[in-house]
């Protein structure tokens, strides 16, 4: 693999990891508060559709992003209603959201655009513009730094950098603010938080809403940054890869970034090469596609460090009377 190919693969890794990073942090925050969310995929899908269709109609990608965030938060609140207010099964609610998204995006896309469940392709201001980082052009020909800075880091859509920024923000929010402390507490021991006079329900809704915002950004980037329009089922399992990354990172923000870049790299490599030889062993493309899931099962099995979820995760909180 020569150097230019490596730069291209890493550049594509940056882009492919971005929706994963948003969704992974979304799931992380929700689960840290004790609400399991396997509906990341569905929220991303609905957001991707809304972003593309509103951006197409309005001609402005940022109105599309706002609509995407809005609809994703609405779906999050539906999840909250089912799992927090009505104490329903959080996993089943997530499954329902995924199907709802898979169905309703195609039904509405067909009704609005009549192109077989896709939106028209986006161009101009309806897509996310690429941003050149300062001095990227000037540093272009400097050896080593040039390809890394100009070739890999610079020239992405704004949301790529927002996603990277979300990592320290999430870390700070969870581990350095009062809200974060309470949020983590509500995921471990909601009764204690309740005893302290803090609303368990309020905190969990807060976490679920943040999860919705981040999934909205993930979906919006998918259809207006990574691609130029929405197509049926375009998330293609990314919500579940993000879920896998979250477990892989054991619910920690910085590790989450590492995990999504690893999984993004796998996708980038699988996109570029059909088969790859590693130490004389021919690795088929399907193995590359399955690797994130296999790694997650290994981690879950506890063979390489145990992944322990927040203790109160998945259970609705019932106040004592």
């Amino acid at each position, binding site marked *: 693999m020569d150097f230019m190919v490596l730069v291209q693969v890493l550049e594509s890794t940056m882009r492919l990891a971005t929706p994963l990073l948003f969704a992974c942090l979304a799931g992380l925050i929700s689960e840290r508060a004790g609400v399991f969310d396997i509906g990341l995929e569905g929220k991303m899908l609905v957001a991707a559709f809304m972003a593309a269709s509103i951006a197409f109609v309005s001609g402005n990608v940022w109105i599309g992003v706002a609509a995407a965030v809005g609809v994703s938060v609405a779906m999050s609140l539906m999840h909250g209603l089912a799992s927090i207010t*009505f104490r*329903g099964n959080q996993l089943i*609610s997530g499954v329902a959201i995924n199907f709802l998204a898979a169905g309703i995006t195609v039904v509405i896309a067909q009704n609005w655009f009549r192109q077989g469940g896709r939106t028209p392709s986006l161009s101009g201001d309806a897509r996310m513009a690429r941003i050149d980082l300062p001095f990227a052009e000037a540093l272009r020909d400097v050896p080593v730094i040039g390809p890394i800075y100009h070739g890999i880091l610079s020239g992405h859509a704004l949301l790529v950098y927002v996603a990277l920024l979300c990592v320290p923000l999430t870390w700070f929010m969870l581990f350095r603010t009062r809200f974060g402390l309470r949020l983590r507490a509500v995921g471990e021991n909601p009764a204690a938080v309740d005893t302290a006079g803090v609303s368990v329900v309020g905190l969990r809704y807060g976490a679920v809403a943040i999860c919705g915002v981040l999934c909205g950004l993930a979906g919006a980037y998918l259809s207006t940054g990574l691609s130029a329009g929405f197509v049926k089922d375009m998330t293609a399992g990314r919500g579940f890869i993000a879920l896998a990354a979250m477990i892989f990172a054991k619910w920690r923000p910085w590790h989450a970034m590492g995990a999504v870049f690893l999984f993004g790299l796998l996708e980038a490599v699988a996109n570029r090469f059909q088969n790859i030889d590693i130490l004389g062993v021919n690795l088929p493309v*399907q193995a590359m596609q*399955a690797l994130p*899931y296999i790694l997650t*099962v290994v981690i879950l099995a506890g063979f390489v460090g145990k992944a322990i979820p927040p203790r109160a995760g998945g259970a609705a909180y019932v106040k004592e009377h």
Partner: protein
Amino acid sequence: MSRGRIPHWADVTLVPLASVFLAFVISGILIWAIGESPWAAMKLMVEGAFGSSYGWGYTLFYATNFIFTGLAVAVAFQARLFNIGGEGQALLGGLGVALVCLYIPWPHWSLALIAASLGAAVFGAGWALIPGYLQAKRGSHIVITTIMFNFIAASLLGYFLVNVLRPQGAQDPSSPRFPSETALPKLHEILGVFGIPFSTVPPVNISLLIAVGMCFAVWFMLWRTRLGFQIRAFGESEPAAEYAGISPVRITVYVMLISGALAGLMAVNSVMGEQQRLVLNAVEGAGFIGIAVALMGRNHPFGVFLAAILFGFLYQGGAELALWTGIPRELIVVIQALVILFTGALDNMVRIPIARIFAMRGAR
């Protein structure tokens, strides 16, 4: 929770019916919102699914798939395990069917059917064994592992179809056609023996009878055997079951084996009964519909049977709808999602008002 306040008969009939009603009302609003008539759509669906033996044939064909996957989810639910991996287990079941049909020369379909059923069940059970074992022994959350296994199954099947089973020179990733000896008798042939005319077009076949047989077998296993008692006891209360000497590891592994085998058996209907070759998307989401079917059927084999017919109707009706109107087939995915939402997650929202009505009547 409020379960105790509703009579049992109402819990198993009124609650699911109210949920389905809500799902249909919301879907009706959606149909109306995209400018079609909900009433006409409903009429078209009912006529398309039940108006002819052609429609019935397709409805029953889809229902056969959903009985298998619904039973798979229901058995696991009885032990309070959420097997979301029916899709992957059915994919692997398809691989089992394909290997049996392609590599062994069968003199007659009946022998091929027995062997292919075994192959499907063994492959499906094998694919469920690892998540089951990991849940039992290592505490790995079975929902997450079975989701992961769905994706791994898809990749594995992709590898097999592209690199192993695909005939030389063929373009699309699929296996060669199975030998004609393995073709299963269709329902019209079976009914023809009794002189009942039935449409020859739909792929509904003898697997339907196996599916119905499985409903009885699962009912017998759950309510008339020691293992079934242990499964239900384990589902009611794990610590209590453990005190009674029931091994959680054993029950978890057994339940997942049975569940996986049932999901795998679906492939006999779809791969052997219809396509007669293995393709990439042989399961087409039926594994997931099993979740809706089990939830609606209250995890009881008879309920699963009825719910499977309902979803068979939705699939066949939905296909007719897509054919004759501007409503895409994905509408049924929306209905399916709403059924899962109301029967599974928003269960209490439906149940509490019904409990109130009964409480009011009881107070009088």
